[in-house]
C-alpha cells in the first residue's frame, strides 16, 4: 500500500509512510502542549500549524490532508 501523501510504502499495519507517520505522531503530541498553552481546537490547531513557518514540511503535509479529510 502506498502513502496517500507521498506515494511511498506505508509502514506495516499503518496508513502512512514512515516519514508521515512520525510527523502525525508529533502532530498529536503537539496538540496536547498547544491545548495546555492556549485555548485552541483541533481544527484551528491544524490551520495554525499549516501557516507556521517553523513547522516541518511533512507535518504540514499531514495537517493539510487532515484538514481536507475533516472538511
Amino acid at each position, binding site marked *: 500500500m502506498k502513502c496517500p501523501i507521498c506515494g511511498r510504502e506505508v509502514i506495516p499495519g499503518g496508513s502512512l509512510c514512515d*516519514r508521515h507517520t*512520525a*510527523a502525525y505522531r*508529533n*502532530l498529536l*503530541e*503537539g496538540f496536547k*502542549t*498547544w491545548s*495546555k*498553552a*492556549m485555548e485552541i481546537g483541533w481544527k484551528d490547531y491544524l490551520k495554525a*500549524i499549516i501557516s*507556521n513557518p*517553523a*513547522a*516541518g*514540511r*511533512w*507535518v504540514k503535509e499531514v495537517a493539510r490532508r487532515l484538514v481536507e479529510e475533516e472538511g
Partner: protein
Amino acid sequence: MRGGHTLIIAEKFDAAQRIASALSEGPPTKKTYRGIPYFEFKRNGRKYVVAPAMGHLYTVTQRAGDRSLYPVFEYTWAPRHLAERGAKKIKTIISAIEKLSRRASEFINATDYDVEGSLIGYMILKHACGGAEKKAKRMKFSTLTPEELNQAFERLMPSLDFEMAEAGRTRHEVDWLYGVNLSRALILSVEKQLKKHFTLSIGRVQGPTLKLLCEREYEINSFVPTPYWEIQAEAIIGGSRYRVEFERNRLPSLREAEAVVSACKGRTGTITSVVEKTSRRMPPEPFDLGSLQREAYRFFGYTPSRTLNIAERLYLNALISYPRTSSQKLPPTINYEAILKGLAENPSYRKLAEKVLEGGELKPVEGAREDPAHPAIYPTGKLPEAPLSKDDSRIYDLVVKRFLAAFGKPSIRLMVKVSMEVEGYKFTLNGRRIIEEGWISLYKPYAEFEEKPLPPLKQGEKVLLERVEYVQKFTEPPPRYNPASLLKAMEELELGTKATRAEIIETLYQRGYIRGERITVTDVGFTVVEAFSKYCPTIISVEFTRNLERQLYAIERGEESRENVLSEALEELKPVVEELKKAEENLGGTLSKAIQAENLRRRLVGSCPSCGTGSLVILRSRRTGKRFIGCTNFFTGKCRQAYPLPQRGRLTVSDKPCKLCGWPTLTLKLKGKRPFTFCINPECPSRRDKS
C-alpha cells in the same frame, strides 16, 4: 659519499622550486624533461636534483576484469594515467622521475610530512625509482622557508616514515574497496532501470556523513513548533529608560503571560541587588585546519574546501605553516620572536607585532589538540613576494591575527547584574563593560566586544515598569547544517580526516545528495541513506567508520597491521555487497524515481504566467538542441510561452525571486567566473538597466 646525484622528491612544483632555492649554494638551474620542470643545484660539491610530483602519481585500481561490475575485491597499485581518465600528464611526470632516478645514488623524500605526503613519496620511490624506498631518507618540515628547509636537510631522518605510508596505503585500499563496490551497486541498479548512466557514489565516510544530515532533515521536517510567551518590559530608573528581562525566558501558557502583564504594568518596584563581577576571557587557541575553516566560513562565507585551497597556496608561498594539521600547539622551536619581528616588517602588522614583542615573555595560549607531525597553523613572518589576491590576503590576515592574539593578555570585562522586584515578580538588567581589551585588540575585526554600560545604580532605588507586554513566539526546529557546522560535527564524530572532510562535503553536493548553503538533503540523498539503512546499516553507521578510522591511526603509530585492518574491513564488506546484489532491483527502482524527481525539480522554474496550467521548466529544443525556458505545455502545442537562455555555463534555478518584479531568477556559473543571478522576465527593470 657514492657517485651519482641525490634525487629529492617534492610533492608539487612550487614546493620543488622552494626546496631547490633554499638548499642551493647559488641559484638552482631549472631544466625540463618533455615539458616537466625539475631543478638542479650543487651543495658542498654534490649534485642534487629536485623533481616535483603532482600529488598522487599512483592509485588503487582493479586488477583485472570489467570495470563496471561488482563485487570486486582484487586490486593493485598502478600509475594514475592507467586507472583514470584525463590523467595523461602523470605518464610524463613518472617517466621524468624514472629518468632522473637512473643516475641517482641517494634519494630523499621531501613531500608533505603527513599520511598522504608520505604515501606519495613512498609510491614514487618504490615504483618509479626502482625500489629506492628502502634506502631513501626523509625530510621533515612544516614551512617552506629557507631556514626551516635547510634545518630539515641538515637533520634528515635516516629512513622513510613507513608507518605513515602504510596507514595511507591501507586507507586508500579500504576506501577503494568500499567506494568501488558500493558505488557500483548504486550506479548499476539505476542504470538497469533507466538505461542511462548517472554518477552516484557512496563511501566509508560519505555514507555516515549523509546519514547525519538525513537525521537532521528528519527532525526538521517532522518538527511541530510549541508556542510560548516572552515578557518584554521597559523600566524607568532615575529618569532613564532601560530594557529589562523577566526572570523566566519562556512562559508556557498565555494565562501565565497575561497574569504577569496585568500585575506589573505601570507598577513600581525596587532594586533588590546590584552585583558586579569581573570575568577573564583567554585568547582563542591557535588554528588547526578545522578551526581555520570554520572561522573563514563565519567571516568570509568560504567553504571548507575553498579555505583549504587558499591555505595550501599560502603554504606553498612560504607565508604560513603546513595547514593540514590537527594541532593547536605552537612550540617554542618555531621561534616566536623571529616570526614577530618578521611580521613587524609588514606595515599592516607592525604596530600589533611590536605590541606583542614589547609585552614581556612570549608564551602563547594553546589548545588541547595535538598532531605528531605539525604544529598549529602560524605565519612564517616572511613578507609576501607579490601582492596577494583578495582571498589569499583575507586568510593570511586571519592566520596572522590569530597568531598574534595567542600571545595577547586575557580580556577582562566587568559584568553588572541589577535585580529588581515588582509585585513579587523578578526582573533583571544586565550591563557589561570592558576593563582591559587584552587579546581582542590583536584579533580585530574578528573579535569585538559589545559594551552595554550602566550608570551607578543602588539597592533600594525605585523602578517604574512603564511598558510590560507579552509576545507569542514558537520553538524553532534544530538549525540546518552549513558546510562549517557539518565539518565540526564530522570532527567531533571522528568521521574522515582533516585532509578529507572538506572534499567529502563537496562530493555530497556534486552527487546531488544535498543542496544549499543551509544544507537540505535531496530525495536522492534520502533514498541512498534509506536504502543502506535497510540493506546494510553498518556501512552508514558512525561507529563503524570511527572504529576503522581508529585502526588506521593505530597503523600510523605502529600498533596495528595493514593486513589485520584490511581483512576485518573485507569481512564486513563482503556480506553487505551480497545483500545489495540481491536487492538491486528494488534499490534501482526507488533510486530511479528519486533521481527523476530531483532532475525535474532542478529544472523547474515556476508556474507559467501565460497559460496558468503549465510550469516553466528549462528545456532543450528538439531541433537545435539549444536550451530555453518553456512551458510544460510547449511540446503539446497548448502554450508557446518561452524565454531565451544563455547557452554556455551551468544554470541553476535560484530559490530567491527577483527583488524588482518577483519573477523567478536563475544563476549562471561560467568557468572561472563569479556566479551571476538574473531575472527571467524580459520586461524586468533589472534587465533594462543592463541593456
